[in-house]
Every structure is written in C-alpha cells, then in structure tokens.
C-alpha cells in the first residue's frame, strides 16, 4: 500500500468522524437558556459527596457522573458512585464494552491528543512521500500519529452516549404517551440512569437499563451534560 493511499484513508476517516459527530450533535441539541457555570472534577466530586451526605442520592449520582466525565478513571469517584448506587438499590450502570473501556481519559485531553496525532501523522506521511531522509523516524512518527488519532476517536465514540444520559431526580412514572394522565408503563427509581431517545413538549422518551421505553416528565430528569452546556 502506497504512502499516499494511507494518507488518503486517514483523511477520509477524520473527515467522516467530523461529519458524524456534527450530525449527531445536531440531533441531540436541545433548547434551553444558557446558564454560566464552572466545572471541575474535584468540585463535582465534592458536590456529589455533599449530596450523598445529605441523603440525596439522585443529585449525588448526577454530580458523580459529571465528575466522571472529566476524570473517568478516578478510583475514589468510581467507588463513591458505586456506594451511592448500591445504597439506592441501583445497578452500577457500567454500560457497553465501548463505554466501559473507551472512557479511559479526559475527553478534552484526548481531543487534543487526536489533533496533535493528526498533524504529526500527516506531516510524517508527507515527508515520506517526498523521499526525505530519516525515513525510519518518519515511519515511527506516522504510526504514533495514527495511534493517537485512533485513541481519540475511540474515546469520542465512548463518550458520545453521555450526551443522551439522564438521571432520574425522583421516582418517576414512564407512560405510554407524552401527555398528562397517560397510562403508566413502569416506574424508574430515583437516581436511575436512563437514555433519552426523543422529546415531545415537556416529556422525554427514555430507555432504562432493562431496555424498557416510555415517556417521562422532563422535570423528573436531569441531563448529565447540562443543557446550558450544549449551546
């Protein structure tokens, strides 16, 4: 396989990822007034601990999940989140294999690693095509760049489901349709993590960990990534 073909495949992959991410983001964009806030892993972790102390498992899980977004491998955070869920009688919610292993680093750091890898790999491939000297070092640089891009894309794919992750603030009823007084299908316990599939008015179509789907009032849910952050 020629170097130029490798470079072409690399470029096509990155472009496809950009288009995919853009399209998915447009799909999950929601309308809500912007709210300024600052987030850090330590701040969210301490906030979650405070909620756990005051007997608010739903808010604790929400803050732990937000902290986990910034520090996904923090063992203390994962342990306390496990304890809160355990005390609330909820499963750990490890998610799919991709989510379990793909969230291995702060996504913002992984984003920049991917950008640097793209630049490094691209330059090395160009130099190799130009028959520049030090071809061994250039080949190593190209491989490192491709690895960085792959790791970044893996992390992005694993982080993507968080966009639709919601926490039940209280025990809520999931109904058959997005209207008040509709028949209840099942209930989701407080602090449970659900995925939002759609929205209609003041109701969200959700899927719980068992795969059950139903409409829940928006006021009963809180997004892991606040809607103000999505503007």
């Amino acid at each position, binding site marked *: 396989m020629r170097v*130029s073909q490798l*470079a072409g495949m690399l*470029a096509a992959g*990155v*472009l496809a990822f*950009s288009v995919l*991410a*853009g399209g*998915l*983001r447009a799909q999950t964009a929601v309308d809500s007034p912007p709210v300024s*806030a*600052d*987030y*850090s*892993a*330590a*701040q969210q*972790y*301490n906030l979650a*601990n*405070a909620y*756990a*102390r*005051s*007997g608010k*498992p739903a808010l*604790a899980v929400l803050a732990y999940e*937000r902290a986990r*977004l*910034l520090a996904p491998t923090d*063992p*203390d*955070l994962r*342990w*306390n989140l496990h*304890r*809160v869920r355990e*005390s*609330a009688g909820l499963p750990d919610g490890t998610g799919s294999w991709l989510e379990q292993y793909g969230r291995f680093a702060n*996504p*913002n750091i992984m*984003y*920049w690693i991917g*950008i640097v890898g*793209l*630049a490094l790999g*691209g*330059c090395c491939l*160009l130099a190799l*095509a*130009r028959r520049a000297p030090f071809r061994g070092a250039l080949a190593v640089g190209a491989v490192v760049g491709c690895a960085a891009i792959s790791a970044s894309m893996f992390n*992005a794919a694993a982080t*993507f489901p968080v*966009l639709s992750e919601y926490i039940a603030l209280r025990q809520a009823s999931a109904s058959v349709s997005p209207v008040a007084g509709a028949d209840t299908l099942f209930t989701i316990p407080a602090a449970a993590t659900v995925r939002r599939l759609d929205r209609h008015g003041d109701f969200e179509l959700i899927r719980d960990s068992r795969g059950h789907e139903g409409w829940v009032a928006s006021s009963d849910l809180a997004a*892991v*990534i*606040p809607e*103000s*952050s*999505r503007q």
Partner: protein
Amino acid sequence: MKSYGQNAWFAIVGLVLIAELAFAAPAGTALQSIEPSTIALGGSAQLTITSIGSEMPAITPPMVPGLEFLAVGQSQQVQIINGVTSARTTVTYQVIAQQAGVFSIPSALPGAEPVVLTVTGGAGSAPNAQVPGGFSQGSQAQPSSSLPAGSARQGASGAAFVRLRLSKHELYVGEMVPVDIQVGARDGMVASLNGPPTLNGDAFTLSKLPENPSRTEEIVDGKPFIVFTWHTALVAVKPGTLSLTMDTPLTVRVRAPGRPDGGFFSGSGFEDLFNDPAFQNFFGASTQRDVTVSSNPETFTVLPLPTEGRPADFGGAVGKFAVSSDISQDKAGEGDPITLRMRVSGEGDFQRVSSPMLQDADGWKAYTPTANFKPEDEIGYRGEKVFEQPLVSLQAGTRTVPEVHFSWFDPATRRYEQAHTEPLTVAITPAPGGAGALAGSPPASTGAASTTADSEAPAWRPDRPDDGGGRISTLLPHYFQPAYMAVPPLVLVALSTAWLWMRRAQRPGEVTRLEPFMRPSVDALASEMDEYATAGNVQSFFGVARTALCKVLASKWGVALPAVTTDEVVSKLGSDGEITRVFMLADEAAYSNLKMTPLEFRQWKRIVLRHVGDGTPS
C-alpha cells in the same frame, strides 16, 4: 271549640296524607348502594338502585350538584307465582365526580337509604380506588373523641352545624393543641359538603386536615345528624385574647318558595312532617342552595413565651419532650464517618423542634445534621424526631463524642426545660498511610438502614482539595463543540494543501536548484577529460562527460539518474543541442572506434565544462 275543630281538621288531613303516602309507595323494598364509596376527583363510582316488589317503579336519576349520573343499564325480572306478580328492577348509574367533597346521594326510591360518596382531591389516590379509612353508608360510628364537646351552631335552617372540640383554651404561642372539627349534616337535607372546614383569621395555624373524616351518627336536639369529624391540631402564632371560628361550605336542600312555612300549619304537629326530608324529597318540593356554615366563636387566651430563664440554645420548641442519643458504631477507622443520632420524643409541634447538634467539637469534623420526624398519631402531635449528624474523627484513639443539648418550653410546668445527651465513646483506629488526613468522606446516612453496613463495608472516599483551578465553562466534550469540530478538517486541509504543493513542485520544466551533493567537481572533470584526451581515448572522454551531464540534468529535472537517457535528453532538449550531441557521441564512441583530433577534444571539453560549471545547462 275552635281549637277542637282545628285539631280535628288537622287530624283528618294528616290521616289522608299518611294514607296517600302509604298507597303511593309501592309495596316491597328498595335498595341503594354505591361502590366504591370513596373516589378521587375525576374518578367514577357505580350507583345501583334495586326495587323489589309487585310493581315496576319508574326510577329517575338523582340530582346532586357536583356529581354527574350516567345511566349504564337497567334490568328487570318479573315472576308470577300463583297469580302474584314479583318484579325486581335494577338500575345502574355511573357516578362521575366533578368536584371534591362529601356528597349525600338521596334515595331515588321511597324506602331506600341515602348513600354517601366521598370525592378526594385526587392527589396521590388512584381513580376508583377505595381509600383506606374512607367511610361508607352503614359504617359504624367511630369511637367518640376524648375532647370535650363544643357548642354546636346550626346553620342553613338547622340542616348543618360546625363545632370545635378542644382540650384547653389557654395556651402559649407555639403550643400545639389537638382539636376535633365536627360538621353535622342533617340526613337528607345536606346534599354535599363542598370542601373541608377552613380557619378564619391569622392568629392560628391548623395542621393538615385528613382527607377522609370519620363519620358518626348523632341525635342533636332530637334530630338525626351525620357528623363528620376531622382530627387535627391547632397552633397559636401570636399572643392575646383571640377568637376562632371555622367555616364549612356545603349544599343544602331547602323548601321551594311558596311552600307553607309554618303559616296554616304553624304550631301544629304537621310542621315537622312538612320539614321531613323524606316528605320533601317525595313530593320534589326542595331546591338546593350553596351555603357556608360557621362554628360558634371559640375564645382563647394565648400567652407569650416568657423571656426569663430562656436558655441560649432555645430553638422555639413548645411541648413535653424527652431526649436520648446513640451512635452508629463504637469502632471506626480514622477518616471514616460515624453517625451521631439524637432522638427527641414527646408531644408538641415538632416543626419547631430543631437542633444544630455538635458544632466546633474539638477533634471532630461535624457535618450539617439531617432530621426525620416519625409521627405516632395521625396529626403529628406525638412522635419522635431523629437528628442524624455525620462525624469524622480527626485523631485516632479512644475518642469521646461530646454531649448535645436541647431546650424547650413546657406549658404544663410553665418553664423552660433543658436536657442533654450522654457523652459517647468511640474507638478510632489509625488509617493505613494516614488515609484519614482528608476528613470529609460522605457518611452512609443516605439511608438509616445503611448505617449498619458501614461497619462492614469499606469507607467512603473523602473529599478532594479544590483550589478552583482547571475549571471549564462547559461539560460538553470538545469533540461535540462546533468550534473544536472545525479543527480536524482545518488540519486536513493544511496537509492536503502541502501535498498538492509538493506534487506541483515535481512537474517537469520547473527550474530547480541544483543540490550541492549532485554538483560534479568541474576541476576533477576537466583533469579527467584532459587525461583521456591525451591518451586519445574517445570512449572514456565522452563517458565521463556524459556522466557529469546526467547528474546535472537529473538534478534539474528531479528524476533519478538512470532516468536521464539519450532518448529523454533528445525529447526534452531537442536533437540539435550541444548536450544532446555529447550524449549521441558518447553512445557512438561506446559502440565504434571513433577518433578525434586534439582540437576536437579541447572543443568538446569546453562545451561540457560550460554546461556543468554553471549548473544550468540550456
């Protein structure tokens, strides 16, 4: 004489009316029932009216404001045995509640008992569900209240009354007093209660009224009443001599205008007959009217709490309380949270019972306590309030949890009381590696049941120091932010531009600089060519000349050296150029015995050196 005549006339009329009533009523029995007897607002119940007798009566749906009756079905069974006709007619109505309240559904047939339907506000109760504790027709009388009966004030022409039953009329600000609010409704004269009793004035607060009052039957002034009783509690919020009344909205049936109201029958025994609900219902002589019935004013003396002897930690609790404490575990690791509990039990307004628990205890990190009230009666007058405070020991060893104080005002003794818990001892084991240095791990007080598990499961991880650095304004990862999503395509565009530029630079005809390592040494070439010229070796002379020109041309065209062939030179430089002729002579000399004079050697040497020397052969 006149009075005898009048009484005789009344007796005759009465006998005629009674006979008419007796003949008008179908022979047999009538039944009326409703299921369920308690529904939520918006729900429905089923009213069944059954008539058993020799005739099939015409049954018309009842008319009750706030209720809608929809005919569901009607069935009839007729049996003729030995010439005697027996008919059983059943009519079913769906009763839909349009407002909350307690409704008395009058009998649709003479002889049937009225039934009562309770419509709750709807919050928290399922439609058509039988509410526990709800009452229904025929329910037994509730145990009578221990509170002294208050005076009843009948309203709406004696159809209803409201009264309060209280244990005392002198109380302190903040003191909670149990009270029974009773609403009596004359059977058949009150169509519905349109809401719970409400308090007049702002000097008292009333605890939440139960949704389902108890129901008893009582004879008041010789007339039967259905008495609804709400057990609740009253709290005075300001001092002084205060008056209290309660209002209750209800709908009563009153006689239609034009009906004799006394008049001709005034003072006679028939007045009661005309006022009888059954009589009025039978003749359809009543109309319905919404009225508000008030209780007699109850006067209270509300005393302010004394300032003398008031403890510094008094938080406003008034009543009679006892205090105890315990701790979740007597052994813990350094940095592990333990839960200190203080239990305040007794009688009073528990909303006013509060405590900061431990504050600034030496060697302990104390967190904000939580409180949980467990009532022992339906009004929350008696119960136990449990305060839970997470504590983390900052030192290892045998530690003592300090005592906690609690103060309240006792209206019975008319003085402030103060109690404290006993100091508790806890063994704190050192954490390996000083893990407890960062105190602040969350306790297991997310649920009281999990406290026991704490002693078995590993501890919670502690808080982190947060210096405020590294904060971001949005949690949305860069991958999904538009500004950042544009960066990868931009990098790709830059790389693609570089790639295209490189491809363009490789096109032939472009002037490229001769790389230094490709430039042949002119002096060495001249010396070598002189050597071959002296020897008359034409083949080697043009061989070195051709090699030197190949390097120059390869460098210029950016191609490999073997790519510079005679054909390539002819195609690019033409067949008449000096360089072309050098390449052609070199080929000729290689395959023939070409001879040259010394002059020709010098001439070709000068040509070759000129093209090689400046590096830009034409």
